[in-house]
């Protein structure tokens, strides 16, 4: 453990804490998600009459701490699921394009170029304007839009591996394309893909928070952190900081995962014999 830098260690502990909260939300939260317990916007910070609730209450008097804990669960669940979708589709299609080559590769790559020529937020807004926004729809839309980035990386890595002797040998043995992808290419392409996983996860957290903030992500009665910023934003002008709590939580989660991702990225590049390795 001594070789892990301090920043990465902090990132690991914080990320672990967020995931722990997400998994055990039901047992950790003192009140229910939509249970009104106190007055509107009780403010525990710098106020003359402190609230009995640790983080105060929200715009209709629900305990903010409980909502933050449940929000953590929804945010992390959505981000994890959509990153999983992005990685499954992106890497399988990317590897297939590299192994099969020819017109399959051309067609897939040009399609990905087309999707990447647009900002994903704009494309998501266009698509979500005609769909009923439910959790599976959100996961699929975000995952598929993000899979284009994974596709690019997976294809680029796999193209280098496909020309290796051991892949040639597998082909000559008469192995199927599926075997070549999963048994020959995947194990050798794993480390750059794992390094990318952290970045995609952060992107997914920011993406879902932004969509929910715009009112097009998670719909009530469920709520994620972005949605909570939206609910409480009107209080900000009157000096009520309830909207800042979920906002800061999003930033802290993103920064912690970033610290871990940065460390993994440095490790994998130094494995490849980088200048500072």
């Amino acid at each position, binding site marked *: 453990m001594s070789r892990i830098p301090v920043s990465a260690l902090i990132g690991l502990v914080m990320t672990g804490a967020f995931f722990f909260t997400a998994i055990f939300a039901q047992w950790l939260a003192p009140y229910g998600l939509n249970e009104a317990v106190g007055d509107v916007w009780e403010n525990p910070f710098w106020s003359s009459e402190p609230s009995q609730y640790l983080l105060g209450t929200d715009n209709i008097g629900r305990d903010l701490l409980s909502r933050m804990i449940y929000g953590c669960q929804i945010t992390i669940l959505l981000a994890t699921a959509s990153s999983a979708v992005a990685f499954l589709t992106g890497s399988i299609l990317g590897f297939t394009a590299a192994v099969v080559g020819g017109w399959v590769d051309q067609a897939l790559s040009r399609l990905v170029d087309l999707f990447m020529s647009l900002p994903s937020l*704009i494309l998501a807004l266009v698509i979500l304007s005609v*769909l009923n926004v439910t959790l599976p729809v959100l996961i699929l839309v975000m995952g598929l839009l993000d899979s284009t980035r994974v596709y690019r990386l997976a294809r680029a890595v796999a193209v280098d591996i496909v020309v290796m002797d051991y892949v040639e040998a597998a082909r000559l043995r008469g192995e199927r394309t599926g075997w070549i992808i999963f048994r020959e290419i995947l194990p050798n392409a794993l480390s750059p893909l794992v390094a990318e996983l952290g970045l995609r996860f952060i992107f997914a957290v920011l993406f879902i928070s*932004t969509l929910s903030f*715009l009112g097009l992500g998670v719909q009530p009665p469920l709520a994620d952190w972005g949605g909570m910023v939206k609910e409480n934003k009107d209080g900000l002008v009157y000096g009520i900081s309830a909207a800042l709590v979920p*906002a800061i939580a999003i930033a802290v989660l993103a920064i912690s995962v*970033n610290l871990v991702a940065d460390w993994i990225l440095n490790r994998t590049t130094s494995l490849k014999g980088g200048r500072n390795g």
Partner: protein
Amino acid sequence: MHPVVKLIAQRLALGILLLLAVSVLIFAGTEMLPGDVAQAILGQSATETALRNLREEMGLNQPALTRYFQWLWGILHGDLGTALSNKKDIATEIGARLGNTLFLAFWAAVISVPLAIGLGLLAVRYRNRWPDKLISGVTLATISLPEFVAGYILMYLLTVKFRIFSPISTIYDSMSFGQKLNAIALPVMVLVLVVLAHMMRMTRAAILNVMQSAYIETAELKGLRPLTIIARHAFPNAIAPVVNVVMLNLAYLVVGVVVVEVVFVYPGMGQYLVDHVTKRDVPVVQACGLIFAAVYIGLNIFADVISILANPRLRHPK
């Protein structure tokens, strides 16, 4: 034909082709996905007759391909259709708002581009010493901030805690230029914060890349001052990648603007788009999506053209 002209013509043609493909994508995305526009407008309780009338009125009974070409033909003639929700002409609505959005994005770009390049040069000059580390640390933190988080934190600090600015950034035509600038100060600060980090990190990387060349070593051995080396020898050779970085981030501003406008209730394109996505007003969403896409693709093509022009090997072929 001069090879540079040919290359640029190719780029432009590619851009137009891409825009055409994007228009198909946007149209298909809103028309062919499951879900009926007429049903979405009138709600679940609509009668069969009302649905049929609305479909008739909107021309939804015609095949998708016909409607696509009608839509495209209209756009090419400046006709973006009428909004479903308030029956207003989309082109006039957008006309006013597009100006506001460009005003916001322009000032954000004017401040962030020189600042990012300056900080990037500074980080290279003091590489691996405290100014570089400080800049890197701060930028790593701001990259992890979504626009609306940065927006509300700044809003809380500067309007509530310190009362320097007003929290609402609505601008009117009757306002003077100075009043307008004062109104957009906060949203511009947020946009600058969001693009600055990325632009600065990429500028630093691009110049560091050039700094490893042999001619930089020669300049060092000649005894030139470090800043002179960076400004006179490294920077001109890093123009193409730096311009690319700048354009990519300006294109990113297009996305940032959508969220920032909602945060600060600014009457621009982004707020218009988000409002009408919630109202399921498909024609408006299509028109706005296409305009955002056109700006985004346009900036990318512009970056390509600049990097072609900045390359002397292409300008003076043997």
